[in-house]
């Protein structure tokens, strides 16, 4: 079995402009921020981003890397409105497919199951249908005859996720309260890159945790990156909570200044800059 360990920069070297990228986590929770930072250091642009949006979307939007966004919301949780996303939207910076949270999940499920769509009782009657004229409906062939949104598969060229632990083979483990949808993102993607707080031996994964915590299975993972603090400044329970002070600085610092201070060097430099300023 192959060792899939790699680095953030190698992961990004395998991505290219114009791709559809799914980003795991939720809002400002367990986002693969080290991978996003590596993406920001690269020239990769013109992206379609599929995300339960948080600062991943905000940063990529601020840096002008998004051509199209697929999302039900973008939030920093403790700061409800993502300022960089907001500014980008208000200047009409990219195309948006705004869909409901459940439609989003059904779209990933459809992709993971290689189905063209899944029926979902959400969206009908709302302006989600108006702002997404490409969405179609489907009528039940059974006696109920109900009409649903036929949520199209959200197939991804690549997925980026961050988990608490992984082995070298690509088995990923979450240890916090919620898996979010990281397994679905990986299953919906042609290739999936998983960063983790710590790479451990396979046997170590279940030494102190139940097998149910093994969220992501290796057959859907292309590369594994050890990235301690790799979700910073989002939360990564139980390893660490959200860095609220840093998130506030992110939200209130003009983007060029923030990028110059924290994103001009490598991940080590990011960490020491963040440490110095805390």
């Amino acid at each position, binding site marked *: 079995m192959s060792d899939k360990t790699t680095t953030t920069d190698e992961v990004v070297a395998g991505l290219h402009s114009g791709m559809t990228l799914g980003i795991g986590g939720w809002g400002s929770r367990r986002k693969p921020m080290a991978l996003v930072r590596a993406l920001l250091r690269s020239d990769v642009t013109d992206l379609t981003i599929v995300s339960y949006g948080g600062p991943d979307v905000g940063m990529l939007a601020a840096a002008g890397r998004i051509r199209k966004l697929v999302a039900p919301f973008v*939030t920093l949780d403790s700061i409800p409105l993502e300022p960089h996303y*907001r500014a980008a939207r208000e200047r009409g910076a990219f195309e948006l497919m705004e869909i409901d949270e*459940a439609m989003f999940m059904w779209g990933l499920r459809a992709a993971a199951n290689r189905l063209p769509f899944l029926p979902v009782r959400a969206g009908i009657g709302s302006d989600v249908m108006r702002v997404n004229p490409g969405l179609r409906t489907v009528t039940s062939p059974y006696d109920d005859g109900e009409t649903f949104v036929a949520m199209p598969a959200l197939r991804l060229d690549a997925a980026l996720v961050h988990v608490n632990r992984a082995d070298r083979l690509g088995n990923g483990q979450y240890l916090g309260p919620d898996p979010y*949808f990281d397994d679905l993102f990986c299953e919906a993607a042609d290739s999936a890159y998983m960063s983790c707080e710590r790479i451990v031996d396979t046997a170590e994964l279940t030494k102190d945790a139940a097998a149910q915590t093994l969220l992501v299975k290796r057959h859907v993972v292309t590369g594994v990156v050890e990235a301690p603090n790799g979700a910073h400044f989002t939360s990564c329970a139980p390893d660490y909570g959200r860095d609220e002070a840093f998130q506030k600085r992110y939200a209130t610092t003009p983007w060029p200044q923030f990028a110059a201070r924290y994103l001009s060097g490598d991940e080590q430099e990011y960490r020491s800059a963040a440490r110095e300023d805390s």
Partner: protein
Amino acid sequence: MTTRAEYCVIACAEAWRGGGEILASPMGLIPSVGARLARLTFAPDLLLTDGEATIVRPDGTAEGWLPYRQHLTLVTGGRRHVMMGASQIDRYGNQNISCIGDWERPKRQLLGVRGAPVNTLNNPTSYWIPRHSRRVFVEKVDMVCGVGYDHAGDARYHRIPRVVSDLGVFDFATPDHAMRLVSLHPGVTLDQVREATSFDLTVPDDVPPTREPTAEELRLIREVIDPENTRAREVGA
């Protein structure tokens, strides 16, 4: 003296009366206090979460796991009554939390539709509005996130039981499902509500005041559920 915030708590709590063994999903401070009050008094079978992935009893004991993916199943299964916020709400209960202005190029980008479409088509959805004003109670919302009665068609599980604001309680129990005033919080006048609402409200001849909390309810709010008086931050005196 019962404060305005405490009448709001009572009015929110009443949303879950008779709900049975369902998940109460309050969004916002006062709905959260209200849901816990209902759970501790007249609606003991309610399920409540810690705001993340754990279903907890009032003393904090975990009694279940509810990560987002299962939460979405609970929504579509219908055994839930959510009380959402609204940046805009109109006469037929259409709600907007997505953006203000033209969606293509919004004047103010807000949260996004979130789960409002799936909520409103699947389980009872009420609303909580801490500052009742013409900017919120609009003639027409800029983006329909939560589906109102004039957009719901024959959606079989669509229901908006109530809207609670800092001024009163409202529902849609009229022939055409237009918003109706149900009760005024003590100290609020009908004119005040009319002035703060952009559309014509249906107003019955006799509008009762929002009911008084019982002594036990006041004790629970003040001593057990919200001793720090966080409710006063959402609705002032």
